């Protein structure tokens, strides 16, 4: 076998190695990004849905405390069933983790949802303000 041939073989091997490393190195973020994009819409929808359900539940309970009535009880019951939206949200998170989305990517999704709505400073403040 000629040395030229050998050299090409080594070169090919190095190229393959580099390519493999690059794929391994890039592949992971690409995979994370792919899963994020695939589920972004659904994730945003369920986040908003669960958020609204929690607010509805809180306000229904306020009303029941202030003026107890049959209607107020029903509103709370209804709001409780509404919280199933949060179960859907939890299930989606679990599913994303199972598929292989890591915690960072998951947090990033949540943050990007909050920021997507914060188009002015006031909203940014509201999102990050401590409430007590």
């Amino acid at each position, binding site marked *: 076998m000629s040395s030229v041939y050998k050299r090409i073989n080594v070169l090919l091997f190095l190229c393959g190695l580099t390519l493999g490393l690059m794929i391994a190195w890039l592949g992971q973020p690409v995979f994370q990004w792919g899963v994020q994009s695939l589920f972004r819409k659904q994730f945003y929808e369920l986040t908003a849905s669960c958020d609204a359900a929690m607010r509805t539940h809180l*306000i229904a309970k306020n009303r029941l405390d202030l003026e107890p009535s049959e*209607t107020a009880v029903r509103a709370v019951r209804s709001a409780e*069933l509404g919280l199933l939206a949060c179960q859907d949200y939890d299930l989606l998170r679990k599913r994303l983790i199972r*598929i292989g989305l890591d915690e960072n990517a998951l947090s990033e999704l949540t943050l990007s949802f909050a920021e997507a709505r914060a188009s002015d400073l006031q909203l940014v403040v509201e999102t990050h303000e401590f409430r007590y």
Partner: protein
Amino acid sequence: MNFGIDRLAAAVTIVLLAAPNTSATETLRERMLRSYALDFGLVPAEETWRDVDPVLAAIGKELFESTLLSSNVDTACASCHLDRFGSADGLPVAIGVEGRSFGAERVRLGGDPQPRNTLPLWGRGGKGFDTLFWDGRVEKLQSGEIQSQYGAAAPDDDPLTVAAHLPPLQLGEMVFDRDSRFAQYEQESTSAAAAYADTIVSRLRERSDLIAQLATRSEQAETDIDYTDVAAALASFIARNFRLGTSRFHAFVFHAAPLTSEELRGGVLFYGKGQCALCHSGPYFSDLDFHTIAFPQFGFGANGFGVDYGRYNVTQNPDDLFAFRTPPLINVTRTAPYSHSGSVAKLRDAIVYHFDPLAFFSNDGSTADDREQLARRIGLWARDYPVAATLSEREIDDLVAFLGTLETESLEKVADPQ
């Protein structure tokens, strides 16, 4: 070979990625939906039925289909309450006397438009269905007393009979108001109405054998039969023919029949996040109480052009301005268009107005008056809906699918009037 395995692996991955929630939550949902439906007042269909004399109902059917009940013999109850439109008329607002044909054709041919969308008749006459019309102008009070425009002199103690007493006596609906012969009834005074009712009964006696049949059935003399007997027969027919059947949702709740997953999600939204069952509750999917939803107002309205004060017209209580009886939702998928003035063509849109009243708002051609009213109605709506549940397109699809499970059939077909 390798290629085949690759494909298989890809397929499995795709299925895993796209797989819906696990079946465990499906059964949780099924269980919750059944228990919520019961909590919010659903009962087996038969439990809403009242005892009705089938012979009287059969006579009532002929009366319902007869144009002899209208002043110029061109309109029957069945002209507006049509089978093919789920016992309503498929029009935004009803077209009364001088109307011909049905559906859109009826508008094209002209006739007297009414201020309100025709109500379907499902469940009317059933147990507890004691508040009638969009504004509840016929109502059986807790005391058992009937409240209606007849005051203390209600012709009967059954609200549906009193309601069935009204249509021929409502101007334009079945009385031709430009006909001088009947001009006196324009005042809608009780005595003029009584005179008109007598005219109808005499005509029925002369031109049909229905009065004779009523007399035989009630073992009275023919001369003793009056319009109240006619109304009672109409009411019997409505109560029997349009009584609730076992809808797919009833079958799901009471006989463990399945729903599709879309319908199931819709049902959970209906009782849960959508808060629909706070008003659309009970066996008829209505609390038979009064609320404001900021639907657009179509047509000239009961209180002048573009204004309908709804419940206020009955109570004269300013708190009741713009409130309407929650419509029952049995067969709602068949009774487009929607709202008290029929201003909403699609079921989806009717749902959207509940949480996003400005979704379709256009300032084009609206006057300051229109906007002032809209703002006022939105304010009233906001009190009923402290936090409106904003629903996604898919959630609306789910709700529409769920509403489709509330379809039931009538006992008999009603003939289209000639």
